[in-house]
């Protein structure tokens, strides 16, 4: 599903303390693309991701995704938008501690009429052996796999990753990125990955660079590197 960001502005604070964190963002991400959003801290990349994900509203402009336009959406509509179109993966996994791996994935399977086959998904995630374990019995990488499974099980058209490797070591980070890539090939979801690690941009179809609330670069990656080959 094609994603279009139309002249998005976002302000924080009031009066003299008012700061514009997004200054008219315009961009497109095509169906099935992996888009990496790069930028230093405070550049506005997480804010943009939150607006795309319907977690924050834009003060001006809107997001078009398929038939939806987020402008003027009410809370209930935003909820429905997220339910039907989006999957979120966070830096710190945010798993429910008293549900097993399989149950954590089932939490989001419940939100759709046609979820992916959970056993098949567990195999893809490499969590088949751990499906009955609780999150505190897993390593960080396994927990992030589970979080990806939870976001993916609805088979959403758009998967949003907020610093998915931020809490992981080098080796595990590479495994997770490899998994993201595999999923993209298998399920063809559009993916937006927010990161400050520029190397991750090498595995993306598109790289957007943000600085001080503005897109400074929007490039299609013509020489994609497989995730497994990334090094930093």
């Amino acid at each position, binding site marked *: 599903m094609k994603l279009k960001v139309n002249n998005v502005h976002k302000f924080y604070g009031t009066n003299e303390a008012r700061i514009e964190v997004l200054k008219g963002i315009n961009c497109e991400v095509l169906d099935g693309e992996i888009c990496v959003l790069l930028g230093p801290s405070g550049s506005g990349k997480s804010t943009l991701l939150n607006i795309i994900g319907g977690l924050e509203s834009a003060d001006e402009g809107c997001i078009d995704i398929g038939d939806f336009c987020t402008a003027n959406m009410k809370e209930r509509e935003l909820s429905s938008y997220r*339910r039907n179109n989006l999957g979120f993966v966070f830096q710190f996994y945010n798993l429910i501690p008293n549900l097993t791996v399989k149950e954590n994935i089932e939490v989001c399977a419940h939100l759709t009429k046609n979820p992916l086959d959970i056993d098949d998904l567990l195999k893809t995630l490499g969590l088949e052996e751990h499906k009955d374990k609780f999150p505190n019995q897993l390593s960080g990488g396994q927990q992030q796999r589970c979080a990806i499974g939870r976001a993916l099980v609805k088979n959403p058209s758009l998967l949003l990753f907020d610093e998915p490797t931020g809490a992981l070591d080098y080796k595990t980070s590479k495994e997770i990125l490899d998994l993201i890539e595999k999923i993209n090939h298998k399920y063809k979801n559009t993916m937006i990955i927010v990161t400050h690690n520029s190397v991750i941009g090498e595995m993306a179809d598109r790289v957007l660079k943000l600085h001080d609330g503005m897109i400074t670069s929007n490039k299609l990656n013509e020489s994609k590197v497989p995730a497994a080959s990334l090094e930093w």
Partner: protein
Amino acid sequence: MRNVLYRRIPRDFKKNWVKYLGMLFILVSTIAVGSSYQAATGGVTKYTDDIVENNLQEDGYFEVTNKISNNDFLHFNEEKINVYENFYASENTYEETAKVLLFNERKSIDIPVIFEGEFPKNHNDIAIDHVFARARGIKIGNSITLVNKTFNVVGTVALPDYTSLFLNNTDLVMNTQNFGVSLLSEEGFNEIEDKYITYRYSYRYQDRNLENKDKKTKYEDMVKYLYTTGNSVNTFLPADQNQSIFFLPTDIGSDAPTMTAFVYILVAMIAFVFAILTNSNIEKEAVIIGTLRASGYTKGEIIWHYLQPTLIIALLGSILGNILGYTAMIGVFCNFYYKSYSVGPIPVTFNIPMFLLTTILPVAIMIGINSLMLWRKLRLTPLRFLRKELKSGKDRKARKLPNVGFMKRFGMRVIGQNRGSYITLFSGIFLSSFLLLFGIGIKPMMEHYTKTVDESLSYNYQYVLKAPTDVEGGERLYVQEFKTYFDLGKKDIGVSAFGIKKDSQFFKDAYVSNGISISSSLSDKMGLDVNDKLTVKDSMTDKEYTFTVNKIYDYKASMSIFMDQETLLKTMEKDEGTYNCILSNEELNIDQSCLIRRISRNDILGASDQLLVSFGTVLAVVNIFSVIIYLVMMYILTKVVIDKNALSISYMKVFGYEPKEIRKLFITPSTIVAMVSLVVCLPLEALCFKYLLIFLSSMIDGYLDFFLPAWVYLAIVGIGIVTYAVINIFHLRSINKIPMTDALKCRE
């Protein structure tokens, strides 16, 4: 696909079983107390209603020196009144102290109810009233000598015409120790010597829908007829004037609103504790909620998820509470009635409105309060949950604290952070201390009341007469019984108007030439002062009279007004010199038949003792219950503070803080709040108790002055401290259990 979030609930119950079990225990106990009280009261009400027709309870009786004639029976039948023999023998000196009436077998009126054992069949069988039997320790199988004859006790019974055991109808209090009734077989009764027999005839109107005024006319006609036909009538007592019949139906359920309010206040309290627990859980799980909301879960779905534990506990509490209330607990309240009133086995029937009051309403209160809290909390955006920004206000700044040591400032922060829990803790301590204050304080208060009344009472005997008597001695005056509307209690209360002379021996300073003086107890109860108006009503004529209060007379013994005797007589349109009351310090030999009421000093003082006997079981339940509430509330609410700070405690351990220092940081604030609450609540509780007394005092003949000795307050604080000390042992253990690795785990 079915939502798997429900699987978290049993796991949550398992993990936090102490908290949930504690809450369930309080809820079950509260609802059990409420439902068993309602069921027992409802059962007794049904019993007293049912015996009127099912057991053909009399509409009145008269006693004559000789048996009435067949013509008399025929006359009454023509007047549509069924009159039946209801003869009895009197034993005045059972074990030297008690009076026992032995009734003949009854077939047509006042049909007795068997309580235990069986009805008498043989000539030497007897069935004793169960209240009297219990009070005197008489058991089935015992032998008992009455009216010169030995009987075998084959059963215990309840007679419809003696649901309350008043020795004389003129008595102020029941006397279950020294007065009892019993039942013989016809064969046995016929063997009793004539000298013991009293010819009582009980009657019932054939028309069961007679208005009160028609009943009064019929009753007056009967009296006239019996006198004019030469019958020597010793007593004539319609049922609505017979305390043994009317006392129970009018007394039953008088405290139901208080009990209902108590149950609902407790349920609301539990609901708030749940709200605090859920709130703390939401703060702990903010990121999970944010994730679920980001994934598309709606606000309603999240509210429903977090509401389920409350709903389950509320439903379980209601169901178990009702089961317990209708089975085990009902015995406590039925026993309370069995100890005081002569009723048959109390029918426990399922009453839908009552069931709703103890099931649907508590569940609704719990769900209502918790839904509101959840709804308010979940108004925040998913992003704020993800960022754990759950407090209102965008730019919250840390409150500036006084320049004191670090440990003290840390403690202040803990108190500030947990103020919601502490406010509920304060309320919980208030409620349980109040219950405890009531349970412990009522006895010394009643003793003080007895002492005050004893000091205030200027006479030893009061005789209210049917007609003037020629007996010598005492001070004669006119007394008129009125009703006045007690606004606070939303009911009429009785007021005695004493018409006194200026030189009254017994009410020396009560006399006023104009208007009225009122007893200080009436003034306190009604909030009346000098120059206020008091409106009273004569319930016989429905006429109202308004008087101006000219003086408050220091008199605690009754709700009374005093006025010039002649003025009262004129007001009541009575002849000059009429009197209907004699006050005396010595007992006067006035025939029972001339008396409406005889009140002795002991009767008045005994009222408080009777009340304590009746409430003994309930007060014990209240005391145990309040200590349990203390324990559970204090435990849960202070545990919330420790749970919330588990990570900080873990950090402190890693930093090298000693267990003693950690206790100081995280337990001392709770200790301070608990102790301050205990002390601060005391005057508030005392104030509430004072107001509660105004309601309670409507149950006895007087006004209960608020009086609590210092030891009661000390006991409350002492119990609070001991309870908290016990809880602290558990808290220390749970703090010791928090692992240092918590602090080292990867966290946002």
